[in-house]
């Protein structure tokens, strides 16, 4: 199975990591976003990240930055996906946005092309319903930063075939990754647990039980987690966390997913975590 050309939709945090990872594993990448400005910024970030990846990958495996960058074509035009063998969609975690993207992909991509929705919460079965290829759609929940995380949570939608799962595994192998396949329900395994943890941790800060640093310290030192829930939230982006918890709340109509008011306030104030310079912690 060959994946000569890969389409990446969305040039945010995840799209940037994916494009970098794919280009560094010798794939031709079409990176699409609706904003040229976002694309320009993404290409700059990818270039910097490819350069800095030398910190961790010494030796002959290091290609010149220009060679890696030459494999990425930024565009605002879906028409460039006409030869894509595989597409990973990383748009904002909002159904209104995702439901507009898939019919466009469906119209332009070749018959054999598999779509992977890199969503952290939205149902794969629901996404598949707005296309005519529900059998060739699955969820791929990549972790951030994509180039450093070797395992992906893969999600089998209601109509996803075994062949599609096999294709997805081969695709991931080409990125030096593996996956754990789970069934489709909003939030899957990872985020149904993580989002509620982050949300409750935000409540702890709001209720002045402990400051963010102490909450994280307990997870790191007592539980042996590599990162605490609030620094993880800053890394993911607090806006994404809020979108995700909102999706879970709408999906299950269960009050245990009600978003913490402090989290809402921080998002409104533009405190979106690492990418905005401030979240539960200050950066820069």
């Amino acid at each position, binding site marked *: 199975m060959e994946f000569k050309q890969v389409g990446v939709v969305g040039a945010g945090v995840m799209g940037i990591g994916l494009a970098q990872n794919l280009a560094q594993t010798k794939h031709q990448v079409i990176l699409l976003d609706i904003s040229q400005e976002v694309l320009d910024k993404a290409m700059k970030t990818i270039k910097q990240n490819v350069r800095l990846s*030398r*910190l*961790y990958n*010494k030796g002959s495996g290091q290609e010149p930055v220009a060679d890696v960058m030459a494999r990425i074509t930024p565009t605002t035009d879906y028409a460039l996906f006409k030869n894509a063998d595989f597409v990973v969609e990383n748009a904002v975690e909002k159904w209104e946005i995702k439901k507009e993207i898939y019919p466009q992909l469906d119209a332009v991509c070749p018959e054999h092309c598999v779509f992977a929705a890199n969503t952290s919460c939205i149902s794969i079965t629901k996404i598949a319903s707005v296309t005519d290829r529900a059998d060739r759609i699955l969820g791929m929940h990549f972790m951030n930063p994509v180039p450093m995380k070797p395992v992906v949570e893969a999600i089998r939608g209601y109509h996803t075939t075994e062949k599609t799962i096999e294709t997805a595994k081969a695709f991931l192998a080409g990125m030096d990754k593996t996956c754990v396949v789970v069934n489709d329900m909003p939030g899957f395994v990872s985020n149904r647990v993580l989002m509620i943890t982050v949300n409750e941790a935000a409540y702890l800060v709001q209720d002045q039980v402990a400051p963010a*640093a102490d909450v994280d310290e307990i997870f*790191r030192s007592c539980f042996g987690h590599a990162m605490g829930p609030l620094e993880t939230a800053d890394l993911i982006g607090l806006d994404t966390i809020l979108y995700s918890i909102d999706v879970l709340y709408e999906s299950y109509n269960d009050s245990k997913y009600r978003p913490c008011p402090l989290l809402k306030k921080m998002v409104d104030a533009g405190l979106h975590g690492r990418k905005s310079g401030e979240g539960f912690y*200050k*950066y820069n």
Partner: protein
Amino acid sequence: MSHKDIKTRIKAFIGKHFQYELKPDEDIFSLGFVNSLFAMQLVTFVESEFDITVEDEDLELDNFRTVNAIDSLVQKKLSG
């Protein structure tokens, strides 16, 4: 720029991320509170703060392991 100046600025940057009084020869990466992302942030900070470019051959974790190591790198770049 004096060594003292450079070291103060580096320590201030690291101090913003971690509530810990770092010694100049202490290995940042062995303390357990930085992850792989922080090393990249540190390089980006050093480049913009001191207006230098860290060349490929200097992109080694060892050059960013301690405040003293970063200081030597910055001095080398500024004088070169």
